[in-house]
């Protein structure tokens, strides 16, 4: 009904009709329309309900700057109708109104709730009784907000993409100035990316990649994320040119949020780009010629201009031209009120500085066009480190200093698109608020913050713009301060008596435009390390879980039976996740002597020694075994979770000490399996020519041999307490070696076992898990390993000074084993209490041991209780129980099985 005849430069294709629905009702549009222009042409004036008061809101800027037309498209909320192109079959729905957009019951908060809903009312009103908060929260969340994300989102299949782009120059803003800057840079031979969010296509520029309909979201230390459709471009450029333009400001007056109140730029865009008449009879209020030019364009399009209120004190040439066309131009006048029930029906205009009904004029109209001047769109520049100052002549903040590598051009720099300096003298600074007393005067349309709210915040002590922002939430809505920052600053200055310079601006923060979370999340991939035997574990039905950054077989369905199989026959576990470092060079032995509290330089080739890495403070940070390969080469294993940290720790000290050592991280390059159990030797012997007899291959020997034709390093160690062989080999043979061992053990009762049975088995031996049985305070002395600290070493070593100190003191607590006769398996982390019920320690590990048929565990207890037979009390989630301390391993305490 509002469609105009052909307009020069219109973007619509009248030959192609697009059909979509709004709240289920069919709407016809033309190709090139936005949802907003199509709905407006269809006669719709209310596009949304406001955040707090649920007031009607209509098109305001038609440029994606304001919050007034936010809708849901195909279930995705937060879409601005005024910039969203129409697509065939799209499903558009209103947000935040029940039962419907035309009748919203929450409007009651506006009609009767005003006095009860000042800023921060939720902090004051919903705090008692405290137990009702969950109910309050539910009600508040339901009442407020900008749409609901569907709980089930089948359309999550839509693809989001990250794309990294490096460039010599990034130009943000595709207006005249931006295009000119991009073209100039390209002509200099630079690699240029131009980002533009406008609806008007940009002609290709040689040497420039143009990202059209794309928005720069922020500036992060030189990286500018740019959202374009389903892609987030992460652009790293050496130089940044911001041609972000200036944003037309609204005026603050009574009823300034009524549908039919429109920025002059919005009214003109609707007319010129989409050939939609914004109204039939308009009142225009402006602080510059911009509004006058808009009035002329609207008049050209057939809109009757009832009156123009020019806030300036002198009549400009543009005003003269309007008068010559018979349009009433009221110089020195401002708009005081927009009246209407569901949309604008009249506007009240009065002279500035003179109050009273006698001087006010009321005009019937269905459109109020306002232009409160322009504020440079500086947010991205401010995020990049630019500084601003207040320009009194223009009535806004302008750029003052720019960081290196950042340039501002065009309107944002105070130079209009035609290239001439903006005519500051031709601009009037509007009063902070006009028409107070006639109704609500909104400073912030996103958050429904009125001029009165700002005043109240100051009265309550929030007298800086940053505090007021947090209290009233002004500038915190979807417009990100585009429409409200300057009015809020003006109001703050008025209420505090400060100058605008003194009030200053709020901190600019990303994102500069609303962006779907899915775009920020990108593709949902999570890095995972998998051993080369992982596929076999899956085929065997393993229960796979995260273990650090690895995916590991936790068990194969029956951890107790798997543990028993290790005791009774043989078990095979994939331990490829262990850290593996090759330390080579003439100084390798001395290097390790400096890193560990015990000695390695005297370790014989082919032998293995256990080592604990301590920090400078003598605390345990990791452990593992070290096998000496030859005089200059050591093979170091670490815990799975500590592999990366230990490699960094070694590298760091190597760089500092400058020793003749090379470090190679083999963690991912080698697979490793632990074959353990009474039949392990037989199984291994079937696959190798190596003499596996106990005499030839002793406990803590390291030997190289082929296993199933694959060269392996075989370490005879016993983390799980049975005769065991840790077999290390090139990862490419993971499945081959695993399969060969399983096949060779098939008639000997071999079973794969996972992480959980391994934890049972190692607990039976009281072998610690660093990070579980130890924490950042644990020392080798407290952890029952004083024997590992060789304070008589010639060489200094990391943590020596601290360990010398600890050696002279009785540790307050010690790590011990315990058994529980009542069969209850306490939670890891359960509290060890003293006689008075005070916490004095904690349980670190606990399991039921199937081979011992009892509950066992490890705990830190006070040193006086750290002796065999002592009784301690464990409190576990309300249950207390008596446990008996044991200081020696529960299984094979003398290591006879291990060494057999």
């Amino acid at each position, binding site marked *: 009904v509002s469609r105009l005849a052909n307009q020069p430069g219109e973007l619509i294709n009248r030959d192609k009709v697009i059909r979509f629905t709004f709240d289920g009702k069919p709407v016809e549009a033309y190709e090139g329309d936005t949802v907003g222009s199509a709905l407006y042409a269809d006669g719709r004036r209310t596009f949304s309900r406001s955040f707090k008061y649920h007031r009607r809101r209509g098109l305001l800027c038609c440029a994606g700057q304001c919050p007034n037309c936010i809708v849901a498209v195909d279930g995705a909320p937060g879409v601005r109708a005024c910039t969203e192109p129409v697509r065939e079959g799209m499903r558009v729905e209103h947000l935040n109104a029940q039962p419907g957009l035309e009748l919203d019951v929450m409007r009651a908060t506006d009609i009767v709730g005003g006095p009860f809903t000042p800023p921060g009312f939720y902090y004051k009103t919903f705090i008692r009784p405290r137990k009702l908060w969950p109910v309050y929260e539910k009600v508040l969340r339901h009442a407020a907000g900008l749409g609901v994300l569907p709980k089930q989102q089948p359309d999550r299949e839509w693809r989001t993409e990250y794309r990294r782009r490096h460039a010599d120059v990034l130009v943000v803003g595709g207006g005249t100035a931006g295009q000119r800057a991009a073209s100039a840079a390209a002509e200099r031979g630079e690699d240029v990316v131009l980002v533009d969010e406008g609806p008007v296509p940009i002609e290709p520029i040689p040497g420039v990649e143009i990202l059209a309909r794309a928005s720069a979201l922020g500036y992060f230390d030189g990286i500018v994320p740019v959202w374009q459709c389903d892609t987030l471009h992460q652009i790293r450029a050496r130089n940044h040119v911001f041609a972000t333009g200036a944003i037309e400001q609204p005026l603050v007056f009574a009823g300034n949020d009524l549908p039919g109140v429109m920025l002059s730029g919005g009214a003109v865009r609707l007319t010129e780009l989409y050939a939609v008449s914004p109204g039939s009879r308009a009142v225009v209020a402006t602080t510059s010629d911009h509004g006058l030019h808009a009035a002329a364009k609207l008049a050209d399009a057939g809109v009757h201009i009832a009156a123009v209120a020019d806030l300036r004190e002198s009549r400009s040439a543009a005003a003269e031209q309007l008068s010559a066309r018979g349009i009433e131009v009221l110089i020195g006048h401002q708009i005081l009120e927009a009246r209407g029930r569901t949309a604008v029906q009249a506007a009240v205009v009065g002279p500035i500085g003179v109050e009273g009904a006698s001087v006010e004029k009321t005009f019937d109209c269905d459109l109020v066009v306002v232009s409160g001047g322009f504020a440079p769109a500086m947010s991205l520049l401010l995020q990049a480190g630019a500084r601003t100052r207040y320009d009194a002549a223009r009535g806004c903040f302008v750029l003052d200093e720019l960081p290196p590598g950042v340039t501002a051009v065009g309107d944002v720099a105070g130079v209009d698109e035609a290239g001439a300096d903006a005519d500051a003298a031709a601009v009037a600074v509007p009063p902070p608020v006009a028409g107070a007393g006639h109704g609500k005067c909104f400073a912030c349309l996103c958050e429904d913050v009125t001029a009165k709210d700002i005043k109240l915040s100051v009265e309550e002590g929030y007298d800086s713009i940053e505090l007021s922002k947090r209290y009233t939430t002004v500038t915190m809505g979807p417009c990100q301060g585009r429409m409200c920052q300057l009015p809020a600053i003006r109001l703050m200055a008025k209420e505090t008596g400060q100058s605008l310079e003194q009030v200053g601006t709020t901190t600019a923060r990303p994102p500069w435009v609303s962006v779907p979370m899915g775009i920020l999340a990108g593709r949902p991939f999570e890095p995972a390390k*998998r*051993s*080369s035997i992982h596929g076999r574990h899956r085929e065997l039905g393993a229960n796979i879980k995260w273990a650090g950054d690895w995916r590991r077989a936790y068990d194969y369905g029956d951890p107790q039976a798997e543990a028993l199989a290790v005791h009774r026959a043989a078990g095979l576990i994939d331990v490829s996740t262990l850290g593996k470092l090759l330390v080579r060079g003439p100084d390798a032995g001395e290097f390790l002597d400096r890193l560990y509290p015990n000695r390695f330089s005297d370790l014989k080739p082919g032998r293995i020694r256990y080592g604990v890495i301590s920090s400078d403070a003598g605390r345990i940070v990791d452990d593992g075994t070290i096998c000496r390969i030859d005089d200059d080469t050591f093979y170091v294993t670490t815990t799975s979770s500590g592999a990366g940290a230990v490699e960094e720790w070694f590298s760091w000290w190597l760089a500092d000490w400058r020793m003749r050592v090379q470090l190679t991280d083999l963690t991912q390059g*080698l697979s490793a399996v632990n074959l353990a159990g009474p039949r392990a030797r037989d199984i291994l012997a079937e696959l190798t020519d190596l003499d596996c007899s106990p005499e030839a291959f002793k406990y803590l020997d390291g030997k190289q041999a082929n296993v199933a034709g694959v*060269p392996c390093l075989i370490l005879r160690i016993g983390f799980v307490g049975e005769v065991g062989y840790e077999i290390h080999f090139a990862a490419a043979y*993971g499945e*081959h070696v695993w399969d060969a061992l399983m096949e060779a053990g098939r008639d000997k009762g071999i079973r794969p076992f996972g992480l959980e049975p391994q934890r049972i088995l190692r607990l039976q031996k009281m072998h610690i898990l660093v990070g579980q049985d130890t924490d950042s305070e644990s020392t080798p002395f407290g952890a029952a390993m004083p024997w590992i600290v060789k304070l008589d070493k010639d060489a200094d070593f990391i943590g020596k000074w601290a360990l010398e100190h600890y050696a002279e003191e009785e540790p307050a607590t010690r790590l011990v084993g315990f058994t529980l006769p009542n069969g209850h398996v306490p939670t890891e982390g359960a509290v060890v209490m003293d006689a008075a019920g005070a916490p004095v320690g904690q349980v670190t590990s606990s399991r039921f041991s199937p081979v011992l048929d009892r509950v066992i565990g490890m705990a830190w207890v006070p040193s006086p209780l750290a002796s065999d037979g002592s009784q301690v009390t464990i409190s576990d989630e309300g249950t207390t129980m008596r446990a008996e301390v044991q200081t020696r391993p529960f299984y094979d305490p003398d290591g006879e099985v291990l060494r057999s």
Partner: protein
Amino acid sequence: VSLTFLSPAAADPSAVARSPMERKAKAAGARFEARDGWNVAVEYPGEDKVPGTVAWADVSHLRKLELQGEGVSGELGEARREGDAWICRLTPTRALLIGGEHTPPPDAVEVTTCFAALTIFGPQAREVIARFCALDLRPQVAPPGSFRPGSIARQPGMIIVEDTDRFLLLFGWAVGEYMWTVVDDAARSLDGGPVGFGALKKND
């Protein structure tokens, strides 16, 4: 005890070496052949129909050696071609030798299975890599023969620019399956697909 256990080449012919991406390649329909002890994907169904946008091939079987000592040569950021091999300097005293079949220096450490590898090639190769890697691979910045260690899909890795539109990616063996998934996802969205060793050789 020696370091022979690091070397896949020292295994008996009966033992088959496998890439960490083999199961992914199988799922994509690859046909395998034994090549120098490795099970190598030589062909994929319909690989000739992969349009001339982007393709990728698993080349994890390429030999990799870490050269150590003061004699290591080469410039930082540069991959030097020596016969069929690339030599990339990692630090003043360490370099990585990739490919080639010549006898390794005595001090070299075999690290073949420390790094899985993919070759990504085609006009859209750079665009595919940009989907998961922030390294600057523009031709004017990284011409053929460039070596770029850095983060690839949030994992430590290295990229060698083998030719204008051809890149060799090296990353941890244990993240092979993850990396295949990432590359597959990015490349397929640009109409790419995996190709076998044969197609890769044709591109040489």
